[in-house]
């Protein structure tokens, strides 16, 4: 049996995933990173993006969550993802996300680059959702 690592995806409202996985790929604050079993202890911030993992259940099922920032704590045999929101494809309303993406892109364009952190985050969040839902970007 391949080595595995325990993954918890935790939001304030619920534990979105809990189980053994083979690999976790996360949008880390200093660049994307992957965690395999026996990773060195690490605590990192997360950007808005897509969290991926391959479940260690023989079928190698892949799971994906759109996360809007947060934190990830890695120890050799456990990985805890802490985020305000973690949405799987089933949680995402594609039309709403597309509308959000359009609106966010518009308001970002209107800002002309001045103090647009919020807008950039909105665009990234919509894009992450669409990526998880495998819907075309607008």
């Amino acid at each position: 049996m391949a080595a595995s690592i325990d993954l918890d995806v935790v939001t304030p409202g619920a534990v979105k995933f809990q189980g053994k996985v083979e690999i976790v790929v996360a949008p880390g604050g200093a660049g994307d990173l992957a965690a395999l079993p026996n990773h060195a202890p690490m605590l990192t911030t997360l950007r808005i993006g897509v969290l991926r993992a391959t479940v260690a259940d023989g079928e190698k099922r892949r799971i994906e969550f759109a996360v809007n920032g947060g934190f990830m704590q890695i120890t050799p045999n456990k990985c805890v993802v802490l985020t305000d929101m973690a949405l799987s494809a089933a949680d995402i309303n594609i039309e709403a996300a597309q509308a959000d993406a359009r609106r966010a892109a518009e308001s970002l364009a209107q800002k002309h680059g001045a103090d647009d952190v919020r807008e950039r985050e909105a665009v990234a969040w919509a894009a992450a959702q669409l990526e998880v839902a495998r819907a075309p970007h607008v």
Partner: protein
Amino acid sequence: MPTLRQLRDRVKSLKNTQQITRAMKMVAGARIRRAELAMKAARPYATAVGDMLRELANGGAKDHPLLQEREVRTPAVLLMTADKGLCGAFNSNLVRSALNTAKTAGPQTRLYLVGLKGRVQLRKSPYEIAEYWPLLGTPFAELGRAVARKVSDDFLAGLVDDVTLVSSRFVSTIVQRPTPVRLLPVSSGEGAVRRSPTQNSYEFEPDTKSVLAALLPKYVEFTVFQALLETQASEFAARLLAMSNATDNAGKLIDDLTLVMNKTRQAAITKEILEIVGGAEALKG
């Protein structure tokens, strides 16, 4: 001695009251279950945040404005109460706990209030009300974020130097305890585990400082959010108990009054019979 009619009206009105209290009791009972589930769902997050803060403290991250202890000139109390009454001494207990905290803190204390009842009861208090949020109408996640941001901003701006959170701790359905906890400055050293240097080799990305800067506001936000959940669960529990007692009391009163009513009616009938018999006797004579 009240008349039969008066008694009958009284019993009728009691029955109406009892119907209402019974309905409120059942509503509270149903909602308490949901509130308890929400509380349980939030627990893993609490554990995870606490864990991460501890690791950061172990990693030597101690430098952040939200951690800064300074001389307390303006203390503050963040009080959470319910929006509605009819839940026994729930709100009064919370307000009393807040007033005690404010009294020890000093007359400069500023109040941050969540929940209508707290504002109503503290409107005439000597303390300044800095901000008020109603409880209902906003999802707790959002409300928690708004409250945490306002309090943190005021703390960072130096408007307040110390914030105590007074909310209700949900011990069980029977016991809810108003509990003051210090919210700001955050004391992150708490529970830091001393470990051997070999174990204590966490890496931080991008670096300890930015992880801490990102995590602390989340921690404050989540603490407020969790307090909101617990306070709400406590409110329902308090209301369940209060309304259950009210229903029982109404039932007892109805029983007592019904007995008096029956006796009065019986007495009236006996009197009438006596009168008739007396009259008949008189005619015979």
